[in-house]
């Protein structure tokens, strides 16, 4: 079996060696190929029967947004080992930043492109703000504090109705445009798809570079043994803050894109479920493996938004008693739960384990006397 695999792989060896050396270019090529292949795939059965190509492309765009979010969370959880359960807060702050800067509600209409950067900066500032008081916390305690922060932000957004219009949220957010060339619209999903593909590529390249840098090694060291890292001269305080800031700024940028895509932000979009879904993607894909995590996010998103919807239609068509009363879309949270529990029990290293995590999760050798 392995001989067949080897034989099939052999001609690709030089290609792989090339891309290992030029990884950023490899990522670029990979994402471009995938972004062309996915829409083409929706033209062939059985995918073409499910929904129109435009609807598919729209779904892919959302999936990619979700995947970027998961990649950002992976920096905090997978690289630095800090369990952040309030990640949706930064996503929300990015979204509201753009909503305030470009909507009829505030009466300001700043262009979209610089706001991408602004969203990142706002995210980073709040990342530091959350990171600073939690520096001494570990494990469960850190999770609780970040969970609280994740709740504070949407609730504040809900209650500060003078600034955010409360539960109604801010609607009519400007679509991005390239003046004189291209105006993004709600009907045509392709420009947004293109934007997300470019951003996805950039973020993935950046994250891979960070992982291999001095800073990435620092995060590894902290995750492995914080005391030893300090004794190696690592300023763990600053390194952890940087992890929070990098993760949060990615969420901020993605928040801006998301707000521009759906043109409305409400506090309800950013509840705990968003953080958990990103976490589920990280766990499913494999903590610490950027491509794995992005794939995990794609799988979860497409599963919940396509498969569950299909299940609804299927049950309706066959008119199965009791089941046709059920809206399967409501069961996406059960999905997250199942993913988290199953993965933790059966394959804690994720579907695509990071090289560094493989060993960590290798099964313990337990003798007859049990674990000692």
């Amino acid at each position, binding site marked *: 079996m392995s001989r067949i695999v080897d034989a099939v792989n052999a001609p690709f060896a030089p290609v792989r060696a090339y891309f290992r050396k030029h990884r950023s270019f490899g990522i670029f090529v990979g994402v471009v190929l995938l972004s062309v292949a996915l829409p083409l795939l929706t033209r062939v059965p059985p995918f073409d029967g499910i929904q129109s190509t435009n609807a598919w492309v729209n779904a892919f765009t959302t999936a990619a947004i979700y995947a970027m979010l998961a990649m950002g969370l992976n920096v905090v959880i997978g690289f630095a080992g800090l369990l952040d359960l309030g990640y949706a807060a930064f996503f929300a702050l990015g979204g509201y930043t753009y909503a305030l800067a470009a909507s009829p509600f505030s*009466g300001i209409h700043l262009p979209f492109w610089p706001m991408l950067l602004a969203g990142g900066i706002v995210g980073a500032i709040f990342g530091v703000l959350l990171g*600073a008081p939690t520096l001494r916390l570990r494990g469960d305690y850190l999770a609780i504090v970040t969970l609280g922060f994740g709740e504070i932000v949407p609730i504040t957004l809900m209650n500060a109705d003078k600034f955010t219009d409360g539960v109604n949220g801010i609607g009519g957010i400007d679509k991005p445009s390239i003046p004189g060339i291209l105006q993004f619209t709600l009907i045509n999903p392709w420009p947004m798809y293109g934007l997300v593909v470019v951003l996805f590529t950039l973020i993935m390249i950046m994250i891979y570079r*960070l992982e291999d840098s001095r800073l990435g*090694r620092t995060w590894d060291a902290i995750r492995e043994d914080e005391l030893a890292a300090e004794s190696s001269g690592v300023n763990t305080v*600053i390194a952890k803050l940087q992890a929070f800031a990098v993760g949060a700024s990615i969420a901020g940028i993605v928040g801006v894109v998301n707000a521009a895509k759906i043109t409305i932000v409400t506090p309800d979009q950013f509840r705990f479920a968003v953080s958990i879904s990103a976490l589920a993607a990280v766990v499913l894909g494999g903590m610490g493996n950027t491509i794995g995590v992005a794939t995990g996010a794609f799988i979860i998103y497409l599963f919940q938004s396509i498969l569950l919807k299909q299940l609804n239609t299927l049950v309706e068509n066959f008119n199965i008693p009791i089941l046709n009363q059920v809206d399967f879309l409501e069961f996406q949270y059960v999905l997250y739960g199942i993913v988290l529990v199953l993965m933790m029990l059966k394959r804690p290293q994720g579907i695509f384990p990071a090289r*560094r995590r493989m060993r960590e999760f290798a099964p313990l050798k337990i003798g007859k006397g049990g674990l000692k």
Partner: protein
Amino acid sequence: MLRARGVTRKFGGLVAVNNVDFEIPRGSISAIIGPNGAGKTTFFNVIAGIYAPTEGTIELDGKPLISPPTGAGREPILLVLPTIPFIALAIYFLMAVGGDTGLVEGVASVAVALLGFVGALLLNIVRPDWYNRLIKRIGVTRPARPNDMVVAGLARTFQNIRLYKSLTTLENILVGMHVHLHGSLLGALFKTRLVREEEAAAEQRARELLAFVDLAGMENELAANLPYGKQRLLEIARAIASRPKLLLLDEPAAGMNPKETEEMTALIRRIRDELGITVLLIEHDMRVVMGISDYITVLDHGEKIAEGLPKAIRTNPKVIEAYLGRGAAAGH
């Protein structure tokens, strides 16, 4: 080069280290010995900046680095004080705008106040040198943290080996070189030429270091997969990767067979002779201690009971008593 004055460390009512004065000359190999629970490791941890001392100071190369923290009660003020001008600015801004504050003014003023707060927070966390000097004037001092001690030229190993187990040996060394690398976040993102050259040079040096401790050819082995003795060697290599002036070794020969012990002894000598690093070690194996130490300090119940040349220590009745009990010392 390292001088400890009146170092005391208490854990609640327990006095782990009691008023220890200690000095080691440059270029020497010194050892701290003592029965179990004598406070050796606690003393080590105080020197390395892991525990703040209850009393006493530690100087490295004449620079006072560690002393008990003072003015902890005033620290919250440090957080609030720098924020006040920003809040004042925000309020002034709102007043200047007048009664009917709109959305933009509201968001802008909140942003200004927030920026001030985050700035103050960062200043307190990062604590650059000038800031440390500034707060010293109002009586707030903090002992150096372990990473500050590494910058000052001290490196250590641990009694129970603490490697980064899922990193390769090479990466372990690269983390050890952290303080001498300068690649920043932005440098990494844009992969500047400077960063690339630095990384390449660092990798080269890391390989040399691995060869120095006889781990050449194991660059891509995961640290966890190394046998015990090699893990010890890797930990030492990681420590000397930070180019320390003083190397603290906590029981380097623990759990080793005689042959490995011999190699370890030779390595410690080479570290001193070839790299010019002063070595301080804790060790139980008397053959190791007597074989390589220039000076020996004996701790018992947290107090220094003897110090001097190995020969003198071996015959010191107080030391024999501490190890073997009163009867043995009296010659029964």
